């Protein structure tokens, strides 16, 4: 299997009036062909900014990608591309699905216009050629009466239907990667399940790699193969879904999983919440960003930033504490 995306040491900052916001502080990860990677973390952990930075979608200024590389298809570095080259990749090779389907579609253009735009731009189709393809796409994402719906406006659709339209836009040019930024967060639970199912079906049919950004660990288990947990603009832990749920290696992941309600637990337990608040990204840190919320923190955690290290097969964590052995790693 080949890598469709390899991100190394990405650093993104926002130069605001309040100071420099250290939004992404050295994120590295890989995405294999056809794989689904979930990126999990609370608000402000840098999940979205990481992905938006790669494709020039953060507002610049104030945002700035300061460091890193992002090798796409083992050939080009996305961060070195000219704006014109990046436009060819966006929508053509990498599709996007955003959080709130109510606001992500232009209210005064028809569904058909908004989907065919991508095809006209990337596939050089005429409007008429695009029309047939759009109707095909609408069928594919499960919208009934596609010929009729082609001329409909977003406000005539429900939230779930609009998200299907956004997905149709994302897959229109058969991309290599789809970046889904909290695609189910704004939807009802029943609709959420439908959208997750639709994603799985399309992913398997198209063989497309998916980056699924979410803060819902429940959804992750259903769709992803691997998970990256982010905290304070850094990866805290990267593992396969099974490993992450069964042997979490980072205290933050342990906390997140403990905060998850379980349907199958017999006795009624209080949900555990992680004490404290996420770090203020305006302050650059020289120690583990999770240290002051961590039950296991010891001296070293306050002295240096833990790097992402291998803790098992296909399993990395950035923590000095060994959860399995119950003590600091490497004897310290």
């Amino acid at each position, binding site marked *: 299997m080949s890598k469709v995306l390899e991100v190394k040491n990405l650093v993104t900052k926002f130069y605001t009036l309040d100071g420099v916001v250290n939004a992404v502080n050295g994120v590295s990860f890989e995405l294999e062909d056809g794989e689904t990677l979930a990126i999990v973390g609370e608000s402000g952990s840098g999940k979205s900014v990481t992905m938006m930075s790669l494709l020039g979608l953060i507002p610049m200024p104030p945002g700035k990608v300061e460091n890193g590389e992002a090798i796409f298809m083992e050939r080009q570095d996305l961060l070195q591309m000219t704006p014109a080259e990046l*436009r060819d990749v966006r*929508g053509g090779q990498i599709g996007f699905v*955003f959080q709130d389907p109510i606001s*992500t*579609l232009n*209210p005064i253009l*028809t569904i058909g216009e908004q989907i065919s*735009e991508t095809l006209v*731009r990337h596939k050089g189709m005429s409007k008429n050629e695009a029309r047939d393809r759009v109707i095909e796409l609408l069928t594919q994402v499960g919208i009934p009466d596609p010929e009729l719906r082609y001329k409909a406006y977003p406000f005539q659709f429900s939230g779930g239907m609009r998200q299907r339209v956004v997905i149709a836009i994302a897959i229109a040019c058969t991309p290599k990667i789809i970046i889904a930024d909290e695609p189910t967060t704004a939807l009802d639970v029943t609709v959420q399940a439908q959208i997750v199912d639709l994603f799985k079906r399309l992913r398997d049919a198209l063989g497309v790699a998916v980056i699924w950004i979410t803060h819902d660990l429940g959804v992750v288990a259903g769709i992803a193969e691997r998970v990256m947990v982010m905290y304070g603009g850094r990866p805290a832990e990267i593992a396969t879904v099974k490993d992450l749920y069964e042997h979490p290696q980072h205290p933050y992941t342990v906390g997140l999983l403990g905060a998850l309600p379980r349907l199958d637990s017999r006795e009624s337990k209080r949900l555990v919440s992680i004490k404290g608040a996420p770090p203020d990204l305006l302050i650059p840190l020289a120690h583990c960003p999770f240290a002051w919320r961590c039950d296991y923190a010891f001296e070293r955690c306050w002295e240096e930033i833990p790097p992402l290290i291998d803790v098992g097969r296909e399993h990395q964590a950035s923590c000095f504490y060994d959860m399995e052995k119950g003590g600091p790693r490497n004897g310290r």
Partner: protein
Amino acid sequence: MSRYFLSKLGQSVLLLFGVLLLVFAMVRVTGDPATLMMSREASPEDMEEFRERMGFNDPLLVQFGRFMSGAVVGDFGDSLHFKTPAMPMVLERLPATLQLAITALFFAVVIGVPLGLVSGFNPGSFIDNIARGLALLGQSVPNFWLALIMILYFAVQLRWFPSFGRDEWKSVIMPAFVLGLPVMGQIVRMTRSSVLEIRGEDFIRTARSKGLERRTIYTRHVFRNVAIPLVSVIGVQFGYMLGGSIYIEAIFAWPGMGQLLEQSIGWRDFPLVQALAVFTAVVVLALNLVTDMAYALIDPRIRYGK
């Protein structure tokens, strides 16, 4: 769409009825309309004769019926000053007022919209600063003062434009500029702020994520959304110009409806004032109707009644 149009038309008719009621009541709330319309030196006999001739001695309902049946066919009686029917005199003044308002609006739109767009797309730039300054100036400079200064400088000293009247094509330039300047200011600010607002919308990010060219995003996604509030501002302002250019017309002795209104108030020529008020209301209502239609053409949410 047609339901939307019909409901707007119905509203306009209701509003017009309200205007007629007001215009009818206005003259009579003080009690005796004759004392309003006649000079103070008029003898009681003249007063009584006037009341009888104008029908002010009839029951109010009869007077209202007469007023309304006349109003429907555009008959507001004879002008007291000119002794000729009032409405034709108003219509005679319409072309001059239209010419002034259209020129002013043209100036305001042709300069204001592009300036607002450029400054909205480049906030903080040199052009943006110029545009904002100009908009502030346009909206805050009192235009009666500006009118006088322009007459003093461009008409009296430089002799580029005539200082008054409507005798040559150049005559319209100064009054139209003064009338259009505040509107231009408003259009610049409105366009700028709605460009900034729309640019930050999620659907613009979606458009960017599709890899669309910047030009496509601006024209198709931003501008069409900006046009919605713009149309309503332009419609309202045009109506305002048609009815509210009274002192501009007075200062430049522009022979339009505003000047006639100013004069007829001085003459206590109530039939003429009433005819002007009702006619202006009709024009503004018609304009609003056109604006609402334009609105519906641009915004499907209105077209489909949501």
